[in-house]
């Protein structure tokens, strides 16, 4: 019976918890009635590994002895953590006793100067602390989190949130709430009060306990009293932090003794408490007791946050702990729905030892009946995974990912980043995560088949890989949010003051979140024997579906060997596995394995150091192309094993024409003629690169950047500073448009407005010069000839003549491949770019195959495959130095 989101199902769960409490408590209550337990008459003192001695009162001992509490003896506080930290075997019962001890110490601290918390309220807090975890199921939070994979659980928690008007995320709190609200529990409380003679609990104790456990206000006279059970520095937190750290052998910095010593309570006129507290107090109430931390103890709350943060990083989110938890979740996926009464009851039908020694009979006991045929298979999988837990053959990480991966060369790549965001988001949704696992499992099957390793599948019960592959996304909950709700108390000359901690320590959430969230890593877990195929399968699925690239820096986190991966990829490639796959995940060509390869990559990277690439939006500046050896390697890898080495050789000839080259070129030209040329002017419109190059030329002190009109009205010479000349057509077109002459070549571009007649006349008479930092002498000569024909007094200077790359030998297979790539990238029927059009520019405009790049853009004359994005042979082609597209 699955619980859905209706109110009636919420009622059904409550009834189930009441029935469960009845079953456990009724025999105990009858036994107490028949034969009162005299051993509890004086209370008990317990030796405790953390707090030395914990004292329970008689009434508390009677509650402790009830099966509802004794059950917690068999539930480990940290679930599966002991499989990683062997000494962390403490139980929920020990923690419950510790919580009683600490809540008493908190009350004592508040009552130091004046008894602000009454005896009944103090008793209530102690009993609540004792019972606060009775809703925990097998392996504590591990099964609780596993239940969140069921839609029914999530929707039930929504109903509960609405009911108590608080965000509720924990099934254990819901269960504890309903158990404490059960008639059986009310009978237990009534009876233990009679037996012990202790009638110190307030009337309506069960409902007040329920309120405290779910964080609802208990009494407006002490409006924050409930927070000693569930709040910023509650007894639960103070015990579990200290106990978990001590029992695991993980040191933490939180000084609990100091924090408790800094806890304060003050009776205040209602008018003097912060507005947020006032809102929870009836209008007629004149005073209230506010609890908090002394202003001088604010740092102890910071320590608390820091301690929690470190524990989450080192203990609760330890990757091996998460791998073991994934196994429990996988077991629950198989058998929880078989549980008699529905999946939400499964955690209460077992204790830890039973789960870890699970067998088919135990599954049948859970179901309360014999299993059907299709259920047998699920039971076998669950039993197999449990056996692996028992033998500590844990799942292991096969693939690791994070939003911020170290040395991630694609960190700035928009598609890669948004792919990671989408992956993380989807992996947090059980349904989407299941589909992702299905895809990975299908790829694993293909890989095993191509490698001839199908025998591995025979070891998997039911021949279904999906229970053995678990995607566990980065999902650390922030640890500061509750603690920053604390109030700070100070005693001034005009009486006590109350101020919110979050106002005084506004930075605390920032640093604690940053610490945890930037370290939390996502994993794909699997069994040891499938780790390599799962890595390769995940790499392909994430690359194809999300555009995510897998940086080599994550291999150690996935515990994978690059050489083993390379060898396996080569085998798979020979078998055709990567035929339609993106180039960058295909096997690395043999040429890349030489000792010289990294230094060759580095030379190219150094040459492109000042390359910035186009940035499409100002606010996305950090997402521009960042050059790195990994990007360069991925680019040349696109040429395949046959041509990758030649492609890298070609890249070593790349020339970046940047600011220094341009200034040198202009400086060389005007050297000795500085009196002749005083103005440097952009040739073209504001949108053209001449605006940038003219700005660069302004580095020469004698030159002043002017508009063409201003410069023409002066008498001295005018200089144009350009980065590159190819055919010269673009420069000629600009000159023609300034003079209003029809274009000699149609470049399909917007033309500049002609100069007014007076300036046109000046343009023809002034001494003009144009300096190209690099280009072809053919292009420079064409500009020279055209200027003469236009009647201009223009001197043309080409500083550095570039030749087409020598790496592209006429007729060579590599050149033919570059042409083919260029053709595939350029042909676009939608915009009328057919094969004939493409043939004129497969190696760059004019087919000159130049290897020139500007820091701000790449000219079309440069080899097309370097700057054009698109698809080649049906697979995405990622250019190394993309051009800003024309708009």
């Amino acid at each position: 019976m699955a619980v859905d989101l209706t109110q009636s199902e919420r009622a059904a769960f409550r009834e189930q918890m009441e029935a469960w409490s009845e079953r456990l408590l009724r025999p105990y209550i009858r036994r107490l009635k028949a034969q009162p337990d005299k051993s509890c008459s004086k209370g008990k003192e317990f030796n405790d590994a953390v707090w030395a001695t914990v004292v329970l009162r008689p009434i508390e001992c009677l509650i402790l002895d009830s099966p509802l509490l004794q059950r917690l003896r068999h539930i480990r506080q940290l679930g599966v953590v002991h499989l990683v930290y062997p000494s962390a075997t403490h139980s929920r019962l020990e923690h419950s006793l510790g919580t009683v001890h600490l809540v008493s110490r908190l009350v004592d601290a508040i009552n130091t100067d004046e008894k602000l918390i009454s005896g009944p309220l103090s008793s209530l807090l102690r009993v609540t602390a004792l019972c606060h975890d009775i809703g925990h199921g097998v392996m504590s939070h591990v099964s609780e989190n596993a239940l969140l994979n069921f839609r029914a659980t999530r929707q039930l928690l929504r109903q509960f949130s609405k009911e108590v008007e608080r965000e509720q995320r924990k099934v254990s709190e819901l269960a504890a709430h309903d158990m404490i609200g059960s008639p059986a529990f009310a009978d237990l409380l009534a009876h233990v009060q009679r037996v012990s003679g202790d009638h110190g609990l307030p009337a309506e104790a069960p409902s007040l306990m329920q309120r405290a456990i779910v964080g609802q206000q208990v009494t407006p006279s002490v409006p924050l009293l409930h927070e000693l059970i569930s709040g910023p520095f509650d007894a639960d937190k103070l015990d579990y932090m200290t106990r978990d750290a001590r029992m695991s052998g993980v040191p933490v910095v939180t000084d609990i003794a100091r924090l408790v010593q800094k806890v304060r309570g003050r009776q205040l006129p209602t008018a003097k408490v912060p507005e947020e507290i006032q809102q929870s107090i009836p209008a007629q109430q004149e005073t209230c007791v506010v609890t908090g931390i002394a202003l001088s103890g604010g740092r102890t709350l910071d320590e608390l946050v820091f301690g929690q943060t470190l524990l989450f990083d080192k203990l609760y989110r330890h990757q091996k702990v998460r791998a073991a938890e994934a196994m429990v979740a996988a077991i629950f996926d198989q058998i929880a729905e078989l549980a008699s009464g529905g999946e939400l009851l499964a955690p209460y039908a077992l204790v830890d030892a039973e789960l870890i020694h699970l067998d088919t009979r135990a599954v049948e006991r859970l179901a309360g009946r014999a299993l059907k045929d299709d259920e047998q298979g699920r039971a076998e999988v669950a039993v197999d995974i449990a056996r692996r837990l028992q033998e500590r053959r844990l799942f292991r990480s096969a693939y690791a990912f994070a939003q911020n991966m170290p040395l991630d060369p694609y960190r700035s790549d928009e598609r890669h980043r948004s792919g990671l965001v989408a992956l993380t988001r989807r992996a947090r949704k059980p349904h989407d995560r299941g589909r992702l696992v299905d895809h990975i499992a299908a790829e694993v099957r293909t890989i095993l088949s191509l490698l001839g390793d199908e025998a591995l599948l025979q070891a998997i019960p039911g021949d279904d890989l999906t229970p053995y592959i678990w995607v566990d996304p980065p999902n650390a909950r922030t640890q500061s949010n509750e603690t920053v709700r604390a109030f700070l108390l100070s005693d001034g000359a005009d009486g006590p003051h109350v101020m919110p901690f979050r106002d005084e320590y506004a930075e605390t959430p920032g640093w604690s979140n940053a610490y945890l969230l930037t370290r939390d890593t996502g994993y794909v877990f699997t069994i040891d024997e499938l780790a390599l195929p799962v890595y390769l399968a995940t790499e392909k699925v994430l690359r194809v579906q999300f555009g995510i690239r897998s940086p080599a820096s994550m291999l150690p986190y996935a515990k994978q060997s690059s050489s083993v991966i390379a060898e396996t990829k080569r085998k798979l490639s020979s078998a055709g596995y990567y035929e339609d796959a993106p180039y960058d995940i295909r096997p690395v060509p043999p040429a890349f394995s030489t000792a010289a390869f990294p230094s060759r990559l580095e030379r190219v990277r150094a040459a492109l150091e000042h390359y910035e690439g186009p940035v499409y939006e100002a606010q996305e500046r950090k997402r521009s192309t960042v050059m790195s050896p990994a990007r360069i390697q991925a680019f040349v890898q696109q040429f395949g094993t046959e041509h990758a080495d030649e492609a890298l050789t070609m890249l070593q000839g790349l020339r970046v024409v940047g600011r220094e080259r341009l200034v040198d070129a202009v400086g060389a030209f005007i050297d000795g003629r500085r009196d002749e040329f005083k103005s440097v002017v952009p040739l073209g419109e504001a949108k053209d690169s001449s605006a940038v190059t003219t700005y660069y030329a302004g580095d020469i002190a004698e030159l002043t950047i002017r508009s063409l009109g201003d410069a023409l009205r002066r008498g001295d010479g005018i200089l144009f500073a350009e980065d590159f000349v190819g055919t010269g057509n673009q420069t000629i077109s600009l000159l023609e448009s300034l003079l209003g002459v029809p274009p000699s070549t149609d470049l399909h571009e917007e033309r500049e407005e002609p100069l007014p007649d007076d300036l046109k006349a000046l343009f023809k008479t002034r001494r003009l010069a144009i300096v190209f930092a690099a280009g072809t002498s053919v292009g420079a000569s064409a500009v020279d000839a055209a200027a003469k024909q236009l009647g201009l007094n223009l001197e043309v200077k080409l500083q550095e003549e570039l030749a087409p790359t020598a790496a592209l030998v006429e007729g060579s297979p590599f050149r033919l491949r570059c042409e083919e790539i260029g053709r595939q990238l350029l042909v676009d029927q939608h915009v009328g770019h057919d094969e004939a059009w493409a043939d004129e520019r497969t190696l760059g405009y004019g087919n000159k195959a130049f290897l020139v790049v500007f820091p701000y853009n790449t000219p079309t004359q440069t080899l097309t495959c370097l700057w054009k994005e698109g698809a080649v042979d049906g697979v995405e082609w990622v250019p190394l130095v993309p051009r800003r597209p024309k708009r």
Partner: protein
Amino acid sequence: MQELTENDFFQGLVATLAIRGVRKISIRTQNFDPVLAAVFQRLDERAGDFGVEPDFDIIPDRIHGDSLTVRDVLASAAADGLISFDNPEYQDIEIKIGPNGGELLLGQDLLELRPLFDELATVFLEAYERTPLA
């Protein structure tokens, strides 16, 4: 019916605000969290019309006025690089994606919910304008 998580909700909202050119938002707890709760309320009312169902709630604490869900999604969005907190007070966030980034984010798997997120962004901006945050 497809479930919508708190991260779907917040990322869709941030993406839509980015498309509308919103860059900076004050997140002072006492005001921001109730604004987001109001947006969530609309989501809860309209989700069924779009074939989705939230699997979370935003209910600001009755005393402290904050929502742990809101604070968690803010931290997750920062870890995802979608927003950043202004130092040193952490009282403002800057949306780190522009219109293109917003489109990409919605395009991943939230595109069908675009009209819903448009509506939610409008509710957000109207509620936000009415608070002392704006």
